[in-house]
């Protein structure tokens, strides 16, 4: 089941309503009260970790539930500054951007093999020009941008880095403890964060 999209706002009352809705949907998905509260906390921390980014654009949130997993999606406009992009990528569990699904992804793979050599080379291909231009190349024919994996490594700080103070990275620590995976997927003009909580454990 996929819920309607909720337009995000900083107004406290509406924010509380959004969090209430997440908790309710989690309960509908047969999660325990405690897990539903965790989903509320997850949502709050995701919004907190991306604050300043989703407020500046039309941020939306929705949920997808299945017997296997509870998925929380947060979509916002692709930020223009590098620091904001780094902040988003750092939220992912892998420390890297995920590839968009579908045809573009497959096309990107084919083009990477054609343009950049052997299939087994350590190359990450993104059809969206999401990350830094440094170390990347564009195909004029397709408009796709290709990034070598080391570029992603530079963008995403190692997850083991020590926080600068007591509060640095606190949202991510909470998010990582709650969910099984966090994917950050850049598309042409927006970014989607998907937090996945497996239900069959």
């Amino acid at each position, binding site marked *: 089941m996929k819920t309607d999209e909720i337009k995000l706002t900083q107004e*406290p*009352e509406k*924010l*509380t309503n959004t*969090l209430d809705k997440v908790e309710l949907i989690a309960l509908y998905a047969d999660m325990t009260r*405690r897990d539903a*509260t965790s989903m*509320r*906390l997850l949502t*709050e*921390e995701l*919004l*907190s970790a991306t604050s300043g980014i989703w407020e500046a654009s039309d941020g939306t949130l929705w949920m997808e539930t299945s017997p296997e997993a509870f998925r929380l999606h947060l979509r916002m406009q692709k930020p223009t500054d590098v620091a904001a992009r780094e902040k988003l990528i750092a939220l992912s569990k892998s420390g890297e951007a995920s590839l968009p699904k579908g045809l573009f992804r497959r096309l990107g793979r084919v083009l990477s093999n054609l343009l950049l050599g052997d299939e087994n080379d350590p190359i990450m291909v993104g059809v969206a020009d999401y990350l830094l231009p440094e170390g990347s190349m564009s195909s004029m024919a397709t408009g796709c941008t290709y990034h070598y994996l080391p570029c992603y490594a530079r963008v995403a700080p190692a997850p083991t880095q020590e926080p600068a103070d*007591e*509060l640095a990275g*606190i*949202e991510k*620590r*909470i998010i990582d*403890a709650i969910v099984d995976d966090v994917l950050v997927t850049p598309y042409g003009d927006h970014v989607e964060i998907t937090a996945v909580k497996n239900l069959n454990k």
Partner: protein
Amino acid sequence: MTLEKKLNGSSLEIALEGRLDTTTAPQLEQEARASLTGITALVVDLSKLDYISSAGLRTLLVMQKIMNIQGTMVVRGATEPVREIFDLTGFSDILTLE
């Protein structure tokens, strides 16, 4: 969230009930800043608090830093979900828990 204060000389007890989150943490910080002048012993009772987010932790840290200068702060009766968040974020080592 509801907040109850008990003042006894230079000792203050603040009891919280409900959720300490993005929308309620500013209320606590405002109350704390207004009340902590001259306080040397602060007890924060969390026995009826069933939810805390990073916004709430930030406020507790602000209170802890104020009290580090002027006295002591003890966090009492944290419920299991709240204690889990303290453990997860390293706040168990920052705060004095009872």
